[in-house]
């Protein structure tokens, strides 16, 4: 049995720690390079500004500042808008929709002109996009209405594999009273939500009226991700 005194132990620990630190550093560095090489900035086509004037950036507690440029956001290479052309359902029947049709939400038209948006009735309503199969979702961008400065209330975004959202629900954004996110003013950049790679087939978006009227509008929803491996 080899006994090692205190000083010998400390020397060994120092020696081992030095090597372990080096190995860890090399591994982390390599991983970072790999990750960085694998990630690309998220881009999307942006609609023309309809409201007049440049948004004035403001810093007020508990409010998301109004975007004045498209945010830099990295996603894995190969990420696409999985929602484009996908089927959309909602909390109301088609006959109860005030204006437009649900397919407008995923048709790629973000102009905000009349005929490019849908209006759901007052109160808390949702729309749901079926991505047709499970996906790794990195970001969701939603345009409610950008022809006017307005704020939509109680915006909640959830992802699930269950079409009824009764189990396995991941809430990726919540600016209602119970949520941790903040209200924001709509503009042409939409609202980019970091979904942190959440997995799921269905995306459900809630809102509860807005500051201009009681209705719930959607121009477009983009779901950026890759089909799950």
């Amino acid at each position: 049995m080899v006994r090692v005194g205190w000083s010998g132990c400390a020397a060994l620990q120092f020696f081992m720690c030095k090597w372990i630190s080096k190995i860890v550093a090399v591994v982390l560095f390599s991983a970072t390079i790999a990750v960085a090489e694998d990630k690309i900035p998220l881009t999307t086509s942006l609609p023309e500004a309809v409201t007049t004037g440049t948004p004035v950036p403001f810093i007020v507690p508990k409010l998301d500042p109004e975007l004045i440029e498209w945010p830099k956001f990295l996603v894995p290479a190969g990420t696409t808008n999985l929602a484009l052309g996908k089927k959309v359902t909602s909390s109301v029947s088609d006959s109860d929709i005030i204006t437009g049709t649900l397919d407008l939400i995923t048709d790629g038209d973000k102009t905000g002109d009349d005929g490019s948006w849908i209006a759901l009735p007052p109160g808390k309503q949702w729309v749901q996009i079926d991505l047709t199969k499970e996906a790794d979702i990195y970001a969701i961008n939603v345009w409610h209405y950008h022809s006017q400065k307005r704020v939509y209330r109680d915006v909640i975004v959830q992802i699930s594999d269950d079409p009824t959202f009764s189990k396995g629900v991941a809430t990726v954004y919540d600016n209602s009273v119970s949520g941790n996110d903040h209200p924001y003013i709509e503009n042409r950049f939409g609202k980019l939500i970091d979904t942190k790679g959440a997995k799921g087939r269905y995306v459900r978006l809630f809102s509860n009226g807005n500051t201009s009227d009681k209705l719930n509008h959607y121009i477009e929803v983009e779901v950026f991700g890759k089909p799950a491996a």
Partner: protein
Amino acid sequence: MDCSSPISVPSPKIRWVIFLTLALLALVVRLPQLGERPMHTDESINGYIIGQLLAGKEFHYDPQDRHGPALAAFTLPLVKLEGAKNFSELTESQLRVSTVLAGTATVLLFGAAVEMFGFVACVIAALLFAFAPLSVYYNRYFIHESLFVLATFGLIISGWQAMQRKSIWLAGLAGACAALMLACKETAPLHFFALALAALAVRFWSVRMRLRFNSGTVRTDNGLLPAHPKLLKMIMAALAIFLFITVLLFTWFGQNWQVFADLFHAVGNFTARAGGEGHEKPWWYYLKLLCDGQSGGIILILSLLGMVSVTSQVLGRPKLQPLAPRIFLVVYALAIFATYSAIPYKTPWLALNFWLPIALLAGIAIEWIWFVTTKCWVRSVVLILLLGLGYLMQQDTRLRVFIKPADEKNPYAYAHTIEDVLDLPKRIETVAQQNNLTQPRIAVIATDAWPLPWYLRKFSQVGFWQPEQDPGAADFYITTSDVSPPLAERLKSFRPDFYGVRPNVLLILWTPEIKRN
């Protein structure tokens, strides 16, 4: 079958019964849901002025932004009659009744214009004024326009009658109407100019008629020729009454003589405002507005037809009907429309000024169509078409006035207050109750806080600050997104909620966290 027998003009008694009935119908149309539309900023400012007067303060003419004292002088006794004692008790309906009554009186006044424009034209015009969306909408708006149009019509009728009857009393009444116009809005001189131009055109036409028919074969019915010995007295009477009422109202019954200096400043301010000040619109703005809806374009075409019928008679041989007042009307309509269209500053309620001549000209056109069609079946078709127009007008009025009165797509709802802001005082009440705050302190920090003074009138502790000022401690804050760093620090312990005030204008209500037991 021939239907060419003329419509006999009813006796004055029957005529007034007809116009009184039309006025009552106009009143009935204007009263429902009077308090439901949110208060426009201008309405809330006028409501605040009435609140100040109820509190015993005098009317102070503001040359910067507000108009004359006539609306306040007209409304104050009415709201007192309705039982209002102070600003916090005032309601939207109590205030808007005054302009509803002004609109109703305008409809009744068509009965007094029969000698000028003819019975059929006046009945049609009264119907158009009573039920058209534009007039119904703005007669329910607590701003100066309805009273101004009533005074303008009063000036036209009394001025004309004074000249016809050579009456000093009627000349005085014309002076009173002119004073009321000036005490309503600073735009009165534009109308005085247009009316003077119209009177000159009639004078010119009358002289030509006299020359053409060699003094007297055709009676010119304008009352302006020849110069009457009483004319100077009439002018003096009109001027004296005009000055007396102007001074009386603007000094608020002798309490504020500083007003004349303010009026002097107002000239510069309102001249600058005519340049636009954010309300610039193209010259065809009013034309587009008047064509709005299913019935607007048809009525506008009818009024153009009315102009054509008057012009054709001016160029041809004058007939029996009084032509001079119609020439006066055409020139006035064109002059006032051209003037307002040429000024860059435009707001939709100014179009109410056009609705008076448009209604009369459309009435003249319908009368003309009626008399040139002598066959019974043709007249039946005309009648059916008119009923169809009435139906379309009713549809427009229903949509614009009652279904979507504050909708941003409603062209009459200009920079209108959004219904969302009505929830703001309710939210304050709820949170104040939850936090046991019986008299919550509310600090409003915004460059332009209107119409909040109206909507917060029931709270006793409300203060207003500019964004760079520090309001100190409060239970609730209402801000724009432009807040100073010290205030931002203070707001960290509050919860924000956005409220829409007008299209593209948002305010943030900061409420204290609810205390939970």
